Structures are given as C-alpha cells and as structure tokens.
C-alpha cells in the first residue's frame, strides 16, 4: 500500500544518554513527494594540511578534463571524475602586508576568514570564518551547526609563529573575530559528542561503563528493532551497514584506548587517540562520514595537523620534522621527503573519499551531495607563497558542480571567491566575503 506518511528526517534511535541519528532512508521520502523535496542536503567540509605542498607534484601540466594525475594526487585516480582541481586561487590576506614574518600563523588564520589576522600573541583578532556564516544559517536544521576537528595540538595560547598566537596556527573556524573554535582531537570525545548526551566522560567513568556494556548500540537496541520492523529490505540493509560502521568506529576507539593504556597510562594525550597517524585519520573521517550521512551536521572543518607543525612521519620512515623539511632550499632529498608526506596525506584523504562515495544517498552517492575541499594555506612552503594555493574540491555539491576537471583561474583570484560560490550552493547568499571580488565562475554544470 502506498501512503504519503514518511519517517521524519530527524528520527533518532534513543537510549540512556544516547541519541543515534539515522542516515537518509527511502522511508524518509513520502511516496508521492516531489523530487525537489526528496533532495538530500548539501554538506561541505574543509580538510586542511599545513606547510604547503610540493606544487610540482600537485599541479597537472594541463587544463580541462582530468587525465593522469601528478604524483601527489595519484591516490585520487579512482575519483578523477569526482574531483575538481582549482588553480591560481590566492589568499592575499595571508601575505605579510607589512606585518613581517609569520606566514604560517597568517595563512591558517586567514584561510577561512579571508582577513588579515592581527599580529599578536595575546590580543587575537581575525574574522568570522565562512564555515561559521554557513553554520549559522543552515545549522539550525541539524543537531550540530558545525563540527571542528583536528589531529594535533590544540594549544590556544602562546607564540606559535613569529609572535602570532597559537590560536592562529591551531584553529580553522572562528565564531567571531576574537573567538576561534578549537578542534576536537580525541576520537572518543567526538564519538561521545555525536552519539552521547553532550557530556564527555572521564577515562575512569568510561572504564566503568565499558565494564557493563559492550556498545553504545546496546542502548538503542529497542528502538532499532522497532524501526527495522517498519523498514523495507533496502532500508534495513542501509541501516545495518550504518550501525555496523558506528560499531566499527567504537571498536577502533576502544582498541586505541586499550593500546594507550598499555603504552603508558599517564600519557599526556587524548585517551582514545590512536598512536598511528593513518588510524587516527581514519577514525576521525569515519565519524565525519557518519555525521554527514546521518545529517548530524552539514559543516565540518578538519585541521589535519596544525600549521607550522614539525611533526615527524615515522609511519613512512621520515624522522625529520615536517616544517623544517619544507624549507628544503631545492635540495632534492628534502623535496622528496616532503613529497612523500604530501602523498601520505592525500592517501588518507582518498581512503575517506572512497567511503563517502560508497554510501548511497538519493539517486547518487553521499559524495555527490558534498563539497569537500582539500587544501593548504601555502602553496610553496619553502618560499611561503600564498598564491596558486593547492585546492581540490571533491563532490558535486548536490549536482551543482561538474567535476573531473582542472580549472585554472587568473592569477590573484581570491580564494574567497570560491567561498562565495560554495555559500551559494549551501543556500547562503552574501554579496561579499573577506577580500572577494565576485563569485568563482566556471564551476557550474552549465
């Protein structure tokens, strides 16, 4: 029997201290609804990598249809038709503009705000970041207006780059011109934020809970069974896959916690953070997938590691710090190591994109309804250049973008022009942002 009654989009599986949002199910679409009403929402995410990129390994030597990708982008080959590479976008406000040294502090602070940050260790000032403008408008429709995530060092005070506060190098999102939004680094904290009642437990309290229960899903099992009885086979399979993905994340976090406790119970590190970079990245992005899939939020910023980081990458046998390596002075061995770090980051990103693409949503994939920007606030980290910023957009922004291309704009084209175009796709219309001079054209399907 066909009915017009549909499962509400904002349905949660509830249990004690638990609220698990659902992915987009067929049952949420009224049988006779118009296609327009059934359209999944558009989401956007920013994945920021620090210290620039070896641009010879990033920029193809051609424009138009994407063919063979350069070395650093090789992991994205399977998704060639899902990505757009944008060339020559510039953040003028990341440049010195009379403020001297401190490109790392400036480029990160200006990346999403589009303004020149005040050079100060204590009296910080940047601007409202564009993700927060979007979050303020569309965030009312989701449980979390936005999520701010990262993987390293969330210090908010102190001098992190030539008298620029750590608040500039360690945050992407800014709620106001003086209030950055520090990223969540700990997968456990993120998990509890997504599925809990908003309270992050102490390790002791968590250990007590773990002793009595196996999974957060146990708490919602009654709701789950009840819902399953009312779903068709396709939705039942979708729900099963979705809950399995949550369980997989939960198990990974528990494993990390167990490993960390064995290594050093007193370690100064978030309790559920895996020691391995790739594993940490996977955990965070898996939860980003779930957050998008279940429409918990439509806006995510992910500061992979903080700007100016000197993190070594022993996972790939690079013991030197990332930042010192980027000042390679054209030494081939050092360039090679930075290239490997850049490739390693893109490899993790590609693995995430594969998962986002694999999730069916509406008539396409979850990726089709996303705009996921992967980029950096510097292009050449050796010379601290703020032009031709490496910028990759994955997804179609809800059938707005025509990916599979490399588009090179004219030099000095403001990055903020991309943000204006993205805001449009998110349904937020403003005339100016940062140093924008107009909307980025050519991105559209037309």
């Amino acid at each position, binding site marked *: 029997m066909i009915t017009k009654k549909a499962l509400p989009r904002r349905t949660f599986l509830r249990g004690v201290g638990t609220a698990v949002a659902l992915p987009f199910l067929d049952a949420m679409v009224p049988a006779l609804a118009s296609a327009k009403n059934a359209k999944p929402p558009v989401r956007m995410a920013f994945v920021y990598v620090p210290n620039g990129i070896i641009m010879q390994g990033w920029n193809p030597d051609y*424009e138009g249809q994407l063919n063979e990708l350069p070395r650093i982008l090789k992991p994205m080959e399977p998704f060639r038709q899902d990505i757009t590479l944008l*060339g*020559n976008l*510039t953040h*003028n*406000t990341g*440049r*010195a*503009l*009379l403020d*001297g*040294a*401190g*490109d790392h502090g400036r480029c990160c602070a200006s990346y999403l705000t589009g303004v*020149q940050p005040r050079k100060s260790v204590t009296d910080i000032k940047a601007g409202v970041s564009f993700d927060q403008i979007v979050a303020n408008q569309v965030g009312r429709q989701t449980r979390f207006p936005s999520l701010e995530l990262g993987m390293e*060092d969330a210090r908010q005070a*102190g*001098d*992190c*780059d*030539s*008298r620029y506060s*750590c608040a500039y190098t360690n945050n992407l999102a800014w709620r106001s011109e003086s209030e950055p939004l520090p990223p969540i680094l700990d997968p456990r904290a993120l998990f509890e934020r997504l599925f809990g009642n908003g309270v992050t437990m102490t390790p002791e309290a968590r250990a007590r809970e773990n002793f009595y229960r196996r999974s957060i899903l146990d708490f919602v099992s009654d709701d789950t069974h009840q819902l399953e009885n009312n779903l068709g086979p396709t939705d039942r399979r979708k729900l099963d896959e979705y809950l399995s993905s949550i369980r997989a994340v939960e198990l990974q976090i528990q494993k990390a916690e167990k490993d960390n406790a064995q290594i050093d119970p007193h370690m100064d590190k978030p309790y559920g953070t895996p020691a391995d970079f790739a594993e940490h990245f996977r955990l965070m992005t898996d939860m980003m997938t779930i957050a998008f899939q279940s429409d918990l939020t439509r806006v995510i910023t992910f500061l992979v590691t*903080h700007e*100016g*980081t*000197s*993190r070594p990458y022993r996972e790939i046998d690079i013991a030197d*710090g990332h*930042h010192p390596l980027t*000042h390679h*002075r054209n030494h081939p061995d050092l360039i090679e190591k930075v290239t490997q770090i850049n490739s390693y980051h893109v490899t993790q990103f590609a693995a995430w994109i594969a998962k986002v693409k694999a999730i069916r949503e509406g008539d396409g994939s979850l990726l089709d309804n996303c705009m996921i920007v992967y980029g950096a606030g510097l292009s050449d980290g050796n*010379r*601290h*250049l703020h*032009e031709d910023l490496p910028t990759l957009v994955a997804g179609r922004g809800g059938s707005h973008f025509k990916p599979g291309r490399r588009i*090179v*704009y*004219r*030099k*000095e*084209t*403001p990055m903020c022009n991309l943000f204006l175009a993205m805001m449009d796709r998110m349904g937020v219309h403003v*005339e*100016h942002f940062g*140093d*924008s*001079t107009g909307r980025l054209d050519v991105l559209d399907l037309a």
Partner: protein
Amino acid sequence: MFPGAKPAVGVLFDSAMRRIDDVLALAMLHAYGGKGQARTAAVGVSCPDLEAAQFCDSLWAFYAGAATCTAAKAMHPPPVGLADGKPAARLPMLSQPLGKRGADGQPVYPNTIQSIEDTAEVPTLFRNALMAQYDQDAVIVLSGPATNLVQLLDMYGAKDWIMRKVRLLSVTGVGVESDAAAAQKLFAEWPTPIAMAGREIGDALPFPGEAIEKDFAWTTADPVVDAYCAYRPMPYDAPSYAMAAMLYAVHPNDGYFKLSGSGNPRQLVLDPTQKDRIVGAYVELASAKPVPRKPKHPAEEEKKNPPLAAH
C-alpha cells in the same frame, strides 16, 4: 634605509603599452628600483594584448637579471595585470623583442607568461598591491584609459584602500582621452590628488632617439632598445607622455614640473629652464644598467625574527 623607516614610494603603473613612451616609462620605473628611489608595486596593462603583458614580464626579468625563462620563474616574478577584452592587434614594438632568439634558439628576453591565466585582473592586482603598501606611500601612474582604475574604484572596499595608501595619481592626458566616460568618472570620484601630464608636456620633452645608440652602448641586448627600434623607423624622437607622468609621480617636489591652478586634476606645467634636466633624467633612467635582485627567503626573515615556541 633606517629600521622602521618607510621604504621608497611604491609605484603602480597602469598603461596601454601601445606607445614607446609606455615602454620607456616602465624602464624608468625599474631603474628607480635599482637606485632605491621607488619600488614597482604592480604593473597593469589596459589594452587586452597578451604580448603587452609578456613584454612587461620580460622587462622585469631583464632588470632582475634572469637570463632564461627557468631563471625568471625561479625568481618568482610578480604577476602582470591585463585587461579583459577582444585581443588587440599585435605591435612590432612588442612582438619583435619577444620573438628575438639567441644563437641557442632561446628567447633573448625570456618571459613566464603563456596564457591569460598567467596574468591577473588589474583591479584585483592593484587592490592587493595597495594592501601591502605603507599608508600614503604609494603612487599610481596611469598612461592609458582609466578603465582599470574605474573598476578598482567600484571594487568593494577598494576605495578605502586607495584613500589610505595612495598619495598621488599621475595621469597622461593622451592616455585617459581614449575612454572619455571612464576619465569623467575617475576625475569625479578618485579620492586623492591627481596630476595630469597633458599632451603638450610630452610633445615638448621628446626622448632623444640618438640616446638609443649612445647611452645604451653598455649592452648589445636590451628590450627597450629593440622595442624603440621596432616602434618606428629610426632615427626618431619620441614624445614622453608616460615618462613625464612617471617622473612627476616619483619626484613631485624636485622641481621638474610645476602644477597649474587648483582643483583636481591639476596640470603639469613645464618650466623651460628644466627641459634639459628632465630629458637628461629620462635618458639616464631609461638606459640604466639593471641591478640584479637578491631573492629574499622567508627562512632568513624567520632567523631574524624567530618563533619563540618550537613545535
């Protein structure tokens, strides 16, 4: 320069690059850079001719001491602004020097511009350049239609930057008259003093053609010389409209010119006693030897100004 002192005035040069005096004025600007009397803050071309942008880029490479395209790229040349529009007819003044090849078959005057994507929109370039100048430490020299500057005026927030950073707009009469509507809007809305070098100024102070053979003898390959020779059959003297505007912009208080009347714009007035001095300055600057630039590395600046906290 003493620590904390303002650097030399930053010059934004916007020309059509259709006359030889535009080329000579740009050469003057680079020479000023070598002498530390002015800095090239930005160069824009108001005529949609890719070769004009390429020529400006090659002139930068020449004065920077970059002998090959690879060397020029490694020195990270500043972007050249170029107006949009239907491509203009090629000019021998530009195409001949650009097409000149050495014995190795490589361009004698390399440039790094291959397509319009390698250039910038002039208003954006100028706005960005102004943001990097000290307050009241920039001048704009306009030797072409006012189209680009009117677009800059209309750009959101740019007028504030102009008021804050620019102390003078120096224009050529023969340039702005090619777009009367834009000139009218410019003169009505431009927020800083404007000085105009009328046609009579440039005509009365021609650049001497004989200097091309005499004063450039220090080199066998100079793009300015090749452009001059290709512009018209030699020998000839060239009116100096853009050069006059450039000279006044950099040295407004050095007595080269007087200003007439009041209001905005004010006209440059020639003092006949200054004629030889002015032409001498033209020749000296346009024929000056390049002073190769030393690339500045951010890591060097970090050494002087180190981060307090190590990551």
